[in-house]
């Protein structure tokens, strides 16, 4: 069976969930070969094998951390040349898309970004995308070269499918031309202890209606009672009430959880672009005319400062 390269997103060998989803999708079109760059391949290998990686190609070099993006493209290209895969899959993160794009130019292939589903087709993999703020669903394929496809988080449920996961060292030479952009410093973001926004099964978001940074704990308390991630509208972020890393929408994170709860958010098109594909949508807004109510499965017209704390208490009681 044809091999499919899967670019591994990880933190020091801790594989992030979207990569496991990629492995699941990759198995629909071939045999997944994981490409693990940087430290921790031995730790990662077990998880990757568990989810279907027949092989784990790995390379570690200081250049991956010292320079932006391009050295990783050199490495992925080396993997591509070693394997001659039927397709290359990457996570739809900022970096995943950039690496994929540059690889596509180098190998003369087309690229599809932000796929939300993937299936085998007669003429190669067919990718489903959600476009125009999720008002259209398209199916596309790549017509030239080896398909390079980036896939959004939460596009598939990771399935266990034990495979060999043999670790092999990949020989990589980082070109001088790839050392153009120096990473002068890197400050890791502090963990909040809450689930990652793009990976979470439940997201609770607050908007301008939250009316101040000092009130965001109301949103956080509900999130914590449900084990959810916390999101925010751009209005709340621009006002400085919540960090930009938590922004949901066109210029923030795009989320597709099982449950999305919007409190004090009107539902502007740019916000919808980032959450419209959520399975179940709930909103709390004091304006019955707010456009967010067009999307909801369940909506409460009311003051979020009444409804949200009451809901939090109720959740806690029911969970015991």
């Amino acid at each position, binding site marked *: 069976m044809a091999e499919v390269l899967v670019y591994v997103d990880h933190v020091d060998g801790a594989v992030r969930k979207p990569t496991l989803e990629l492995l699941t999708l990759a198995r629909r079109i071939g045999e997944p070969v994981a490409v693990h760059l940087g430290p921790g391949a031995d730790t990662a290998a077990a998880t990757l094998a568990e989810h279907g990686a027949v092989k784990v190609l790995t390379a570690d070099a200081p250049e991956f951390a010292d320079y*932006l*993006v391009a050295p990783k*493209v050199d490495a992925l290209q080396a993997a591509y040349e070693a394997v001659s895969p039927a397709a290359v899959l990457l996570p739809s993160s*900022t970096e995943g*898309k950039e690496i994929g*794009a*540059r690889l*596509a*130019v180098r190998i003369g*292939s*087309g*690229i599809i*970004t*932000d796929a939300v589903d993937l299936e085998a087709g007669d003429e190669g993999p067919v990718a489903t995308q959600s476009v*125009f703020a999720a*008002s*259209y*669903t*398209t*199916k*596309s394929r790549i*017509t030239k070269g080896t398909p390079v496809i980036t896939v959004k988080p939460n596009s598939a449920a990771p399935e266990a499918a034990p495979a060999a996961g043999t670790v092999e060292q990949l020989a990589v030479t980082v070109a001088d031309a790839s050392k*153009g*952009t120096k*990473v*002068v410093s*890197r400050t*890791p*973001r502090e963990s909040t202890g809450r689930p990652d926004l793009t990976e979470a099964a439940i997201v609770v978001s607050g908007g301008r209606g939250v009316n101040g940074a000092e009130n965001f704990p109301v949103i956080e308390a509900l999130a914590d009672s*449900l084990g959810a991630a916390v999101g925010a509208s751009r209005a709340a972020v621009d006002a400085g009430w919540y960090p*930009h*890393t938590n922004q949901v929408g*066109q*210029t923030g994170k795009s989320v597709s959880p099982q*449950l999305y709860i919007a409190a004090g958010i009107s539902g502007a*098109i*740019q916000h919808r672009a980032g959450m419209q594909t959520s399975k*179940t*949508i*709930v909103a709390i807004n004091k304006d*019955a005319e707010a456009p967010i*109510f*067009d*999307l*909801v*499965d*369940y*909506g*409460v*017209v*009311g*003051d979020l400062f*009444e*409804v949200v704390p*009451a*809901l*939090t208490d*109720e959740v806690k009681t*029911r*969970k015991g």
Partner: protein
Amino acid sequence: MSLRIVVCVKYVPDATGDRHFAEDLTVDRDDVDGLLSELDEYAVEQALQIKEAADGDAEITVLTVGPEDANDALRKALSMGADKGVHVEDDDLHGTDALGTSLVLAKAVEKTGYDLVVCGMASTDGTMGVLPALLAERLGVPQVTQLSEVSVDGGPDGTVKGRRDGDTATEHLEASLPAVVSVTDQSGEARYPSFKGIMAAKKKPVESLELDDLDIEADEVGLAGAWTKVEEAAERPARTAGTIVKDEGEGGKQLAEFLAGQKFI
């Protein structure tokens, strides 16, 4: 020598209007109002600030690849304060995908001459956010992308510095010119064109280029030359109307009831 900045700007269908696909499954650009992509206004703004920081010793060219109406996007950028425009327009460009567009932009940027290319973080219609990386790859220059802060030191032979707020870390980046950068909507509000700016823009030069001028063959771009193909586009069914209740003191409880029914609690 003064710093040569090229800003790539895209003319896009208005996101607040009804966006559609045309029969050939390309983005319908005829039946909807278009405008300069809002996210590219941030790119124009940062170019203007870099020029101001260089005491005006820079020339800003705004470049677009798009249909006749894309000229509106150039005029808007010129009215904000850019110096001149370049419009690549050719019937054979209809249906060009990201790889094709990057080829055209790369050739046009080279023909124009540049020390720094500034892009937006993503177009508001395609929302791929890959063009800047594609451009850097094609031009063979450093890619300094998704910046929430950017500055240039030392003119055309100098360096560009920026801050990239990634998913897991904040990075400070640095590269020698020439380079390609992209800036996010966190980089600072874009200015509004002044009346004087709008008047001045009318007299600013806009050069028109066709594929021939860029030594690009028709079959390298357009629908026929595209590396990708949209096979189906279906309007997403409207979500079925949900239950909406008014909070009369029981809203929280009712909501909890609903969530429990859906097995979320």
